[in-house]
């Protein structure tokens, strides 16, 4: 594993240059190389969604994307999303409705919910449940999360 790949990209608006192993996943790159521990590795098979981050304008699984493929990309994590204030209302709704328990899934859930707010403003509860089905929550029963997203969508209309 001596071969390394040079990449330069923007993460949460900041320019980052690193030399990475070809096998380095985005989630490990964020957590281990950049210290951005808000995104979590839950299953490492692309199923649970705890590592959901935004690359350019799409949400992706941080455990399925190789860092080496991201030269020139724009990556936004929960830290950057919070800093920008883009989903401050959604995060406030999560807090008010107790839409997180242990919180391990929550950053990924907020990233996925932010995608609904950006691209699916007409989503109803069923559509919200469908869209969030790539993000497992083992604690809440999902209802408070759906409530929080629905309320935020409604308040933005």
């Amino acid at each position, binding site marked *: 594993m001596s071969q390394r790949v040079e990449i330069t990209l923007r993460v949460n608006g900041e320019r980052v240059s690193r030399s990475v192993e070809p096998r380095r996943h985005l989630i490990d790159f964020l957590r281990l190389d950049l210290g951005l521990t808000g995104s979590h590795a839950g299953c490492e098979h692309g199923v649970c969604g705890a590592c959901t981050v935004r690359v350019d304008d799409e949400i992706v699984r941080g455990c399925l994307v190789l860092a080496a493929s991201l030269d020139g990309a724009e990556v936004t994590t*929960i830290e950057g999303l919070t800093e920008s204030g883009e989903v401050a209302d959604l995060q406030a709704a999560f807090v008010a409705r107790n839409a997180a328990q*242990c919180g391990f899934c929550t950053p990924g859930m907020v990233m996925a919910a932010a995608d609904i707010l950006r691209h699916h403003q007409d989503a109803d509860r069923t559509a919200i449940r469908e869209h969030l089905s790539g993000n497992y929550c083992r604690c809440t029963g999902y209802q408070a999360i759906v409530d929080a997203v629905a309320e935020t969508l409604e308040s933005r209309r």
Partner: protein
Amino acid sequence: MNEIPTPENIGLSREDLPNSYIGRSVPRPNLPKLVQGLASYTDDVTLPRMVHAAFLRSPHAHARIVKVDSAAALAVPGVLRVFTGADLAKVCDPWVATLDHLKGMKSAPQHPLPLERATWQGEPVVAVIAESRAAAEDGVAALAVEWEPLPAQLDMETALAPGAVLIHPALGDNLVFTRTATKGDVEAAMAAAHKVVEATFVTGRHTGVTLEPRSIIADYNRADGTLTAHHSTQAPHMMQGVFAKQLRMEEGQVRVICKDVGGSFGIKVHVYPDEVAVAAIAKVMGRPVKFVADRFESFVSDIHARDHRLKGRIAVDAEGKILAFDIDDLTGIGPYSVYPRTSAVEGNQVVNLCGGPYDFANYRCTTTVVLQNKTPTCQYRAVGHPIATAVTEGLVDLAAEALGMDPIEIRRRNLIRDDAYPYTSPPGMRFEGLSHHAALEKLLAMVPVAKIRADQEAQRKKGVYRGLGFASFIELTNPSPFMYGLGGARISAQDGATVRMDPDGSVVVLSGVTEQGQGTEGILRQIVAHGVGVALERVKVVTGDTQTTPYGGGTWACRGAGIGGEAALQSAIALKQQILVVAGAMLQAAPESLDIVLGQVVDKATGRERMPLGELGRILYFRGDTLPKDLPRELVQTRHFITKEYPFAFTNGIQACWAEVDAETGLVTVLEHWCVEDCGRVINPLLVDEQVRGGIVQGLGGALYEHCVYDGQGNLLTTTMADYLVPMSAEMPDIHVGHVETPTRESLLGAKGAGEAGTAGAPAALMNAINDALRPLGARVTEQPFTPACILQALGKI
């Protein structure tokens, strides 16, 4: 403040008082960091000189370890050390998981890494330590282990039969534990009954799937001889004792810190060999060692649960009165009983809980707990409850069907009367106060039964099969030492809280119960703010550190609110009384004439503000020279609490499930679900409701999707989240939650547990709903999970 506090005079469950927080839906203090990605889970912690562990795990269900060749592994760049079972046995003692009060129980010594044989596929066998996790995994891949595969005992049904593979020959057989509870004369009752119906039930092997995997960083400091473990655990003080004992240290030399814990559900309250191995390796290497299970490791090494087969009979008279239950339970627990809670408790709970909601005279229930070469099982959320509830409620519905009686009516005729308490159940469980009938009536006010039955009838004519199912349940919470301590386990049933006021008038509470997402810190903050008389925002809660918090058991078995909450309330009241003594001296007033409201010392009679707590703190801490010399100045109070009269605080509830079964595909869709539960005093309805919903979803997951499936050689086939299915948001319905409140009189707070009620009842309610749907088709299911294949088999289609 000389009056004795009562729920009434301290304003519990009142929202009209300015300082009344107990009973209010207020947000948790730790949520902003969770939604902003600023929490600190164990894997988020990085320490200087830290190295990483990866484990070679047995590829066989049962095999002799002939030879471990680590030369190639040690040549991998970044690999530092390799440890075998023999290496760790030099520094770490084995443990045996039995409890003295479970008569006749036996198990075998377990080492952090096995010495001679691997006894389940996935058992950690060799540890590789490297500069990074990736390098450690490269090292594992380079290990050369020579195995001699041995015959494996997989089927629990044959574990005690002649010719069974003896998993631990020294034990003589594969029997871990058996117990029979009897009351009355079951055979006579069966013989005289109007109807006797029977069925065999299976509950599938599940696991907890905490989204944060098991995680630990163990750091041994040679200079001061201390071990510090950053650990994702529910029971830091228990683990402090375990690490000390196994590594031959004093408890005071071990500190366990658990910051944010990403879900637990009972998974993180056990002693895992790989985690003890990491602690032992840290002691050998004198530096921090991190291990975080990956998802494959979680599935093969987190405890499993619920692998039971139950044969049940129920006898009823012509009026539907239950005369007897007769149940035979068999469970396979893997090759070792899990330390220190043991793997006999789940079966023992089945014996204690079957028939639990009902008033009946004759009972016989046997559990038989056997060894097998699969992943060890132990306590997982609602231990034994969903099993006991499934067999009980399944049999009650079968009896109703045999009698031609409505399932609601048979429950109404048999549920223990609300005025019958105290009440002792046939297996000897003592109930202080339950509310089955009130809960049933409340449920019926929420569930539109007539409308649903009309819809069911109309849909059947269109070939759409829908069913309504009910399940009453009891739940064991607030455990006393009768659960573990009595059997010799160093697991605290008592818990403590220290509450102090700092100079600025803010309050800090340190508690021995822990937070894994339930909202422990949120309710402790409410309780202490209420008890002292300050605004919520002025209270900081500290949990999860054995060095700073009072010794306690942690959070499991629904004890956080009931035990830890009461300790916090008592210490908060004591602090308030102490503050008022100081205030009385400063204000030349009798302490009992004063009160504290929202951080202000006030005249109790008039509410007139006399002094903010910040001013009191300033004078006390910085100008103590101005106060009477003999004034007691301790603005810190500690109280401990343990239940005294009852071994357990039982709760109760009832659930209803409305489901649709596709007779062509076998797919089950849960349309709507209801739960009414009685957890005593509700401290925060918002938190309790979502706890109940989460529990229901976990119960529905186990009943519909979740299954640890093994092949014929004992290989676990469901080792990714794509194979082991947990419920997703789109599959789950909106869930309606209601409450009846019967506070326990064991404590001032009156709280019982709420976290397991949902899981206890949901599978049974769903099973009964499915069978209600299938009834016109002459089919019935009793073996979980109710997969499409299971449904189609019941329908005779495959």
